[in-house]
């Protein structure tokens, strides 16, 4: 089964059809997808701003990273699950829009960057997080994260503009 055929199966599924045709559920899921961004991308942005030295630079990184982790991870659970639901409802229409695969690519790259950061730096942030100079690799991960998540939001917001030309 090709990707296009698979997207048609999702689109025609009971769940996809019900969500797409509902008066309130669809806008509610869209609304949750949007405001959960403040928890997911928004909180990760503030962590990245700390890593690049633009937010609370006198505060140990661990003091920001650790307490925000559960909130931003919960945010990502909501953003991603509402995103999957919205995708199922619009699958065959959205899959042919050129910016959509680009958005997925940005999500994958941002995810890989986050996992790499957690693996290399995140778990022992108490060791380097108090230093006056932030390690180069950490700064790079922070900048990459800001850039990639911005790419996700930008390409996501542009989907309707590339879909109805």
């Amino acid at each position, binding site marked *: 089964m090709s990707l296009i055929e698979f997207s048609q199966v999702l689109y025609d599924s009971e769940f996809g059809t019900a969500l797409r045709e509902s008066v309130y559920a*669809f*806008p509610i899921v*869209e*609304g949750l997808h*949007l*405001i959960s*961004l*403040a*928890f997911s*991308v*928004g*909180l990760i*942005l*503030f962590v990245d701003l700390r890593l690049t030295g633009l*937010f*609370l630079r006198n*505060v140990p990184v661990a*003091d*920001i990273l650790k*307490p*925000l982790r559960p*909130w931003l991870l919960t945010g990502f659970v909501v953003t991603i699950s509402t995103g999957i639901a919205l995708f199922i409802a619009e699958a065959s229409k959205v899959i042919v829009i050129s910016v959509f695969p680009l958005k997925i690519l940005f999500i994958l790259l941002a995810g890989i960057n986050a996992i790499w950061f957690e693996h290399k730096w995140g778990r022992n942030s108490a060791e380097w997080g108090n230093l006056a100079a932030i390690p180069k690799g950490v700064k790079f991960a922070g900048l990459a994260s800001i850039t990639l998540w*911005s790419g996700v*939001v*930008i390409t996501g*917001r*542009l989907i309707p*503009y590339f879909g109805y030309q």
Partner: protein
Amino acid sequence: MSTLELFHSIQTSHLSSVLGEQNHLFGAVAELFHIAGLILVLSSILLVSLRLLGLGLRAHTVPQIFKATSRFFWIGLAFLVVSGLFLFIPAADQYYPNSIFWYKFVLLAAALLVHLTLYQWVAKLQSPKPAVAKLTGLIALSLWFSVAFSGRFIGFF
């Protein structure tokens, strides 16, 4: 002048026709600034409100977090207002009959009012009463997130 007439004169203004004649990517860029501003405003409010509720960045005081996020809040709000005007002015007549549009702006007025009074006052106190802090956090959080949520609804109704 009634509000209807005001909206209609905005719609028929010179600025409106200049904005309306722009390529559709102009609207797309305005939407991008609108969502960037939304993320900055909501997550700044979220960081301070979580702390007011005794959650999130607990290693620091409320005034520290309020001060550190304040810059991002105001930059975000500036993005929202300017891009919002660019989206509104060319389409004022379409927004007038939309009831969700009016709910959004009532909520925004309430959010701004609370922000400039209760919120600013409590967020600057070194040790606010826990009940007052919690209530303020809860009100700010619900108002700002409701503004964003209702904003997303405008296009559907």
